Structures are given as C-alpha cells and as structure tokens.
C-alpha cells in the first residue's frame, strides 16, 4: 500500500476535481484544508474531492471536509466526495456524515449531475 500523501487538481468543465492519495491525518489534513480554501476563495463554489486513492482518514480529515462543505454551500455550491473503498466509507457512515455529503462511487458520477 502506498502511504505517500499527495494532492493533485484538474479542471473539468463542470467543476474542479481535487484528487487526494495516501493517508489524511492530523499531519496532512491542513494541506488539504489549504487547497480547498484556496479553491473556494478563487471562486469555485462546487468542488469534487476524489478520495479513491485514500487509505486512511481520521476525524481531523472529516473536520476539514465538513468545513470545506460549509464554505462551498455558503458560496452557493457543493462539495462532492468520490469514495469506493468500504473502509473509507465506513468512517463517514459511523459519524453520520453520509447524510451530510453527496457521495459518489466515481468521479464521472460526481460530475455527471453538474451543469457544464
């Protein structure tokens, strides 16, 4: 399992896609927070966060995502998550956050419902 933490971004016609790989924990979550805050500050109200390559996340990571969701919604948009790994989805389920986030199995699915 590759534990290397990495964030990459790409532009799609519907919304920017922020892809995270590795472990999002108390050490790495601030990097993700900064990238998402910069996106919203730069005018992106809706963002897709691809977590398909994430192997671990903790409550700090959840806090970052919840904070980013709030900012996106305040800007009139949404923060959509892409999760396929049951172990990662489980963390959202046990914290009740599956009721809060729009969660999709693929990036295409997350982008699919957005206007282009």
């Amino acid at each position: 399992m590759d534990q290397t933490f990495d964030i990459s971004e790409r532009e799609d016609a519907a919304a920017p896609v922020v892809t995270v790989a590795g472990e999002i924990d108390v050490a790495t979550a601030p990097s993700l927070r900064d990238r998402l805050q910069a996106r919203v500050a730069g005018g992106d109200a809706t963002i897709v966060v691809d977590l398909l390559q994430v192997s671990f996340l903790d409550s700090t990571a959840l806090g970052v995502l919840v904070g980013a969701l709030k900012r996106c919604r305040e800007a009139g948009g949404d923060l959509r998550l892409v999760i396929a790994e049951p172990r990662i989805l489980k963390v959202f389920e046990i914290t009740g956050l599956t009721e809060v986030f729009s969660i999709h199995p693929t990036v295409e699915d997350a982008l699919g419902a957005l206007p282009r």
Partner: protein
Amino acid sequence: MSISGREMEPSDVIELSIPVRTDLVVLARLTAATLATRVGFDVEEIEDLRLAVEELCLSLVRSGDDGRLRLRYTREGDDQIAIECSFEPAPGSPDNGPPPDDLSLRILDALVDEHGRSQKEGHSRAWLRKRRSRTAV
C-alpha cells in the same frame, strides 16, 4: 499475573513515548497495527484499531501543545488489546486537553468495545479496549 487464564508475558506490553508532533502520531498507529496482527485481528479490525488509537491521541492534545504522549499497549488474554494514552505537558505548558470532539467520540463508540478518559497523576489520560471478533485459528 494471569489474565483470562493465560500468564502475562513481558512481550504482552509495549510502551511508546513520542513528542507531540503531528507527523509522529503515525507511530502510534503502526504500533497498534503490529500488536493487533500478533493477536490475530482481521484486516478490518486492524484498521479499526489504527483509527481508534489515532482518535485517542487526538483527544488529549490541542494544536500547539508541547510535551509527550505516552502510550501503553497491553495484550489481554488471547483476544483483546487495551491501549492507554497519557499526555505529559512540557514544563509550563497547560494540560487542559481539548474539549470532547463529537466526530472523534462517534468513531471511538463505533470501533472499540470500551473507551474512556480521565485524569491520572495530574495528567490527561484516555484509554480503549478492543476484542477480536473471530475465533483464533
């Protein structure tokens, strides 16, 4: 000392002391995973314990705290692990601990059999206990 009819051995206890640095909490997770593997936890239980010990550590320190986290991992019997974590602040640093975090508490409630938090000898302390679900092979 006998736990569940099995004599406790020195190798059943692992102690770890780490400076409060975000990039070192991974050591607490790695140690938990190693011990859980030895006790025969399955992959999902190992992942549960890795996340639970992370939340245990996070429950004791605030951003900017200075000091050390001391973790004591104990194998209890053939199928259970107890982890105790205490925060020893650096001289002059406060030991108030962060307020309970709702997400963190929900994670611990879901992933371990028991957990709690208290003051011990003047230091904040949090602990958990998790039992293996399947029968040992």
